[in-house]
């Protein structure tokens, strides 16, 4: 019942019409582009087709240049719901491997980001010296750094989750540092002076004023951070020999020309990222409402 009410609300707000329109436009574009892109392969495989047969074949090739949405969805449904989740062919299995590294990297990155922000806000030397390095760290392409991290950590015997989590951390700490520095500095001078008139200790200033003030900034950063974490985890899977994970799945797909597999891994990653951001958004709304910052 609740679900239908939600649907009705969605319709009555007029939200659904723009969404459907955009989706339909993308679909039309996608299917029409798929015809010329795949027609060469159709022509090579089949002779004497009528135009409509040609189009249908182009939309349903086994190894198309551009798979069509229904092919990707079919593949996803099959590999998500109809494979055992312990199977190497299950997207749930690969998704979980990537998710694990994402979450581990996200937690590490958040901790590192908050720690650096605290240092920057409280220590003059760190304020002047750390930020340029933090920014420089993000100008280096992650694709260049990822293999080095994997190789170096491999050579000291660390494999599996941790190297990927480190790469995730490398991407996700940045938005947290930037957001938290801004958040911790967001109390105005009056509020800080006020604390001073009460002779508050630096720790009290942090816990009672700076930290609560920074919560909205933290959540904004976490949303960017978790998406970056997922990208990091996927990139981290590419040089590791493509054993497991969504990144491995994409890589395997390119090795064997399995375009449908690549696209379904890609869609899964996008779906995963969206879900993670939505989850953080929900936690944010609950927290801020509890703190009476939004009402």
């Amino acid at each position, binding site marked *: 019942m609740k679900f239908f009410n939600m649907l009705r609300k969605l319709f009555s707000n007029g939200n659904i019409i723009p969404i459907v329109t955009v989706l339909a436009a993308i679909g039309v574009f996608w299917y029409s582009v798929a015809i010329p892109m795949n027609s060469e392969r159709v022509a090579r495989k089949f002779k004497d087709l009528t135009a409509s047969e040609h189009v249908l074949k182009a939309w349903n090739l086994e190894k198309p240049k551009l798979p069509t949405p229904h092919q990707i969805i079919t593949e996803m449904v099959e590999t998500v719901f109809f494979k055992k989740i312990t199977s190497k062919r299950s997207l749930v299995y690969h998704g979980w491997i990537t998710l694990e590294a994402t979450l581990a990297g996200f937690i590490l990155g958040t901790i590192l980001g908050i720690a650096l922000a605290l240092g920057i806000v409280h220590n003059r030397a760190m304020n002047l010296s750390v930020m340029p390095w933090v920014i420089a760290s993000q100008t280096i392409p992650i694709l260049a750094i990822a293999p080095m991290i994997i190789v170096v950590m491999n050579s000291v015997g660390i494999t599996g989750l941790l190297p990927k989590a480190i790469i995730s951390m490398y991407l996700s700490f940045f938005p947290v540092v930037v957001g938290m520095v801004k958040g911790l500095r967001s109390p105005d001078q009056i509020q800080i002076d006020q604390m001073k008139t*009460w002779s508050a200790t630096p720790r009290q200033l942090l816990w009672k004023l700076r930290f*609560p003030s920074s919560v909205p900034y933290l959540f904004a950063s976490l949303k960017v951070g978790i998406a970056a974490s997922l990208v990091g985890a996927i990139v981290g899977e590419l040089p590791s020999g493509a054993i497991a994970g969504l990144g491995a799945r994409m890589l395997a797909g390119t090795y064997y020309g399995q375009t449908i597999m690549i696209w379904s891994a890609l869609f899964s990653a996008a779906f995963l990222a969206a879900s993670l951001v939505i989850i953080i958004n929900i936690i944010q709304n609950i927290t801020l409402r509890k703190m*009476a910052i939004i009402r």
Partner: protein
Amino acid sequence: MISVQSVDLTFETNDGPVQALKDVSLDVKQGDFVSFIGPSGCGKTTLLRAIAALENPTSGKLSVNGRTPDEARRSREYGYVFQAAGLYPWRTVAGNIKLPLEIMGYLKAEKEERVKKVIELVELTGFERKFPWQLSGGMQQRASIARALAFDANILLMDEPFGALDEIVRDRLNGELLNLWKQTKKTICFVTHSIPEAVFLSTKIVVMSPRPGRITDVIESPLPENRTLEIRDSKEFIKIAQRVREGLKAGHTDEIL
């Protein structure tokens, strides 16, 4: 109580030094209600901040309760009310008033008791569990005053606390503040740029003028301690207001010459 002896205070800015206070001397006795009045830039807020140890005088001597301002700050001998109420949006009214008590490490039972007492004092009973955004500007400022009263500092420093409020609310809060002062017998230093406010509230009016910030006149008010808003139509009131106005004008003439 508070003694200011030939205090100078210079700010270093990018455009060179700015003298905010020049040779300021003043004595505030226990139980006084002192207003600082003057145009913006006359250093009235700076003087208040120096008393609160939020600014450091360049030279001269300042003492609060016989100690340096910083010692007085550390032993929490004054409460400070800022221009903006500065309530924490994530705390209720009671939570906001409790904040300094938490910082000062009061016991739980005492915290509750004190919060209850000052909420009654500023007439906010029934609003304990409301959040700041649910209050009007005047009520927020009252909560902010309650917060400054919650711990037993015997000095109350107020920096244009009613500056952002409309005149009707302001009149009312002025009356309430006067009652509060009589009840608590605190020493109050009050910065304002409203002449009627200064004359109505104070036992002593300090008139200041800008560039450099200095005291041009100190008026001991002859008005009785029990005042109602009607006193503002009395002859004495008008006479004092006139003297304040002249003091302010004198400061300006100096500047032109």
